[in-house]
């Protein structure tokens, strides 16, 4: 099987898995869900590292790659942290009053 054909299979199955998983998420958590998936798609940082760190990288690649690593890192860091910050606020019962 050609590599891209394999990739298309992976894509198709992941998309269906995604549909099923997202459908299970309560609308209560749609905002944190969005910031979580955004942080996950910042996995683009992998591509950015490969471009920036290559031994034969021309200057253009290094500059564009640097910006890409920077932008993805911001998304990874702030995405996970803000998702957690939001989720911490969802409480079932009244917090104890002082």
């Amino acid at each position: 099987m050609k590599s891209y054909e394999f990739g298309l299979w992976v894509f198709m199955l992941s998309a269906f898995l995604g549909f099923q998983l997202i459908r299970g998420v309560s609308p209560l958590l749609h905002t944190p869900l969005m910031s979580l998936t955004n942080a996950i798609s910042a996995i683009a940082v992998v591509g950015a590292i490969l471009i920036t760190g290559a031994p034969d990288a021309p200057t253009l690649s290094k500059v564009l790659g640097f910006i890409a690593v920077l932008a993805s890192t911001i998304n990874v860091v702030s995405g996970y942290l803000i998702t957690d910050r939001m989720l911490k606020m969802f409480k079932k019962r009244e917090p104890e009053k002082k």
Partner: protein
Amino acid sequence: MIDSGFLNDTIIPGLYMLAAAGFILAIKWMNSPATARRGVIVGEIGMLIAVVGTLLRFEVVNYQWILIAFFLGSAIGVPLAYMMPMTAVPQRTAISHAFGALASALIGTAEYYKTTPSGFTMGALVLEILLGFLTFTASLMAFGKLQEILPTRPITYKGQNFVNLGIFTAAVVIGITLIVSPEMTWLFPIFMGLALLFGVLLIIPIGGADMPTVIALLNSYAGLSAAAMGFALDNKLLIVAGALDGSSGFILSIIMCRAMNRSFSNVLFGAFGQLQVSAATTSERPIRSASPEEAAQILDASRTVIVIPGYGMAVSQAQHKLREMYDVLTKRGVDVQFAIHPVAGRMPGHMNVLLAEADVPYDKLREMDDINPEIPMADVALVIGANDVVNPGAETDPKSPIAGMPIIQAYKARTVMVIKRSMNPGFAGIDNDLYYMPNTLMLFGDAKSFLSSIVKELAAVARS
């Protein structure tokens, strides 16, 4: 020393697979608030594994710039996450879509100039760059509108859809030309420019009330761009993560569209709210209004109260006062619930996050379909800063621009109270019959100060 070929071919793909499993579990655990935080942790571990694995690959030799970018990115990302007020979450989401899309577009551009691939790889690259650049500018525009740097009303002109379609077609044609003959490098900047321009034009006609759909759609595009990068770089982890993000955004935008009874094309090309403004301003029907004292007495005398919040609550930052009212009423034995319409606010789930921040327990936040059957039994429906989502015209008037949109049936409650600044029609410029019903009391004023007067009155009643 580990043999570097073994590392690249066996160990690193294994690490990527672990990372993908982490991401899948992270989304799975988001299905309940009880497990969601565990999901974030497993997602973080997945990301860490993927990044460390990539740094170990033997073709990565120059660490200097990568580490500087990591450091700078964290220095920006940490304050961004902790200092951002919860009311600004829609803006933050828009800007993070812009960052993600930019990263993916730039990686594609660098790859194109470095290797000038052909065939399938070039096809994936073109898709990645097109989606990346258009999502970048579109998300920046969405950010501008949410932050109110740009006018939030839809901007339309004659022939707009024609211009947009023309530019998009031109971008696609040039993209296909580049796939067929990738060596025509002079076409590439034109391609980039068209994609960037299309992103701007796409958002110009979109109004604030449609932002939940658009943000979800941009989320989907950013994910698809990352998946296309996975094809271009032949990296399965990117394909999996991109597909998950892409399908997530897609489903959310479908949910948003359904909650407005509109189609995708209608949201993107319909320029809602522009046509009806003139028709809606002249209504001279009688209304009844009430003071905070009267409102407090009615609330105090009721057994069940259903609160329906909307974007106006976020604008006036009334969620904390609302929670104080909730406390006082609950203490006095009144059952208070919150009815959340899927498109209330500026992004999916916006109201839930604001109320959770104000410490309202999440089991009191109810979905529209879930709470509608209970509204006829409610003594009071209290509408705060919501308009179209409680407009009975959606059910009764087939000519209404929002006809067929599912609404929270506030009008079925014994008494309806609406906190509103004035009788100006709402964002979409549609008149709302709810305000003129015999069982409706209008409470005129800023939501936050009105609620705080109600809370004061309730406390006074409690003491006497």
